[in-house]
């Protein structure tokens, strides 16, 4: 087994992720291999620096800013919901009013039928009024047949319009 095969285990060992037999095997190899010893100490040093660099001292201002933004967003969401609830409430109330009005109208008694009036129209001679010719119409001939009391006498009237 060459040193490249030990790399992963040494990296785990450097971070304290190996225990028991695995840790003991790495320790034995490091003791016998100067290259891996350097690799291991380099890893430990880097990890130490990384932890030190990232041991963050976050300022209270950062937390305050986040809290303020979160609470503002929650409040904004609430306002939207309140507005939606108000609009829906008004809409529902309007629908209810319309429903009540329609129902009231349907249940109201029907008005009495209008009184029937009979009119007698005096007999008048029948007059036939021809329609005025349309400008677009072509001239045509009209034939009117008038039957007299005598079946043998028929009067024909021919006209143009």
């Amino acid at each position, binding site marked *: 087994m060459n040193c490249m095969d030990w*790399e*992963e*285990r040494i*990296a*785990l060992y*450097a*971070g304290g*992720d190996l225990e028991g037999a695995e840790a003991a095997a790495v320790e034995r190899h490091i003791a016998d291999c100067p290259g891996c010893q*350097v*690799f291991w100490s*380099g*890893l430990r040093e*880097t*990890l130490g*620096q*990384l*932890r030190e*660099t*990232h041991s*963050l001292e*976050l300022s209270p201002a*950062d*937390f305050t*800013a*986040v*809290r303020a*933004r*979160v*609470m503002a*967003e*929650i409040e904004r969401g609430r306002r939207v919901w309140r507005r939606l609830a108000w609009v829906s409430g008004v809409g529902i109330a309007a629908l209810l009013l319309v429903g009540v009005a329609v129902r009231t109208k349907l249940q109201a008694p029907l008005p009495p039928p209008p009184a029937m009036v009979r009119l007698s129209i005096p007999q008048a001679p029948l007059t036939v009024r021809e329609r005025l010719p349309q400008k677009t119409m072509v001239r045509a001939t009209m034939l009117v047949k008038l039957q007299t009391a005598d079946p043998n006498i028929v009067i024909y009237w021919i006209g143009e319009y």
Partner: protein
Amino acid sequence: MALLVMATAAEGTRERPGVSATAEFERLMRRYERLVLATALRLTGSNEDARDVSQEVFLKLYRNLGKVEAEAALSSWLYRVTVNACHDLRRRRRPESPVEDAGPLESAEADPQQALSEAERRRVLQLSLRMLPEKERAALVLRDLEGLSTEEVARVLGSSEATVRSQISKARVKVKGFVERYFGRRS
């Protein structure tokens, strides 16, 4: 994401008698704000992004108040939501170019003995996290910086312990390589 429904605990996130939901939420937010903000900052490497992520995480907590029952499970839940929110943010911001961020790397290699200020050293170490793949970065941050056990990290990331160990190991080796390349050393 599946919500956690855990065993009841003496001090859960359920609304307690006489305490309004908002007051209960504010109590939880104050209690866990360091966990969320620090994790987000370590994963994103940016204060503004960390604040955005924290806001998203706490709003999610507010919407799920009462569903995450035990505070023992709440920290795992918050870690998971924070890691996912950071991943989402990164995806929205693609393409990300850590190589560009690591611009001074080449110039430093040209003169490895150049004295490096402490600020620069810190910047390189912070940058070393950003060049890691998402999962390896999350595993390293949770294990080495947040101090979670491998088992807890596996639970938070939804992976097996073997996978997490492999990710942590690779991440440590990569960070070491990155930092040593910058400082011009060879292992």
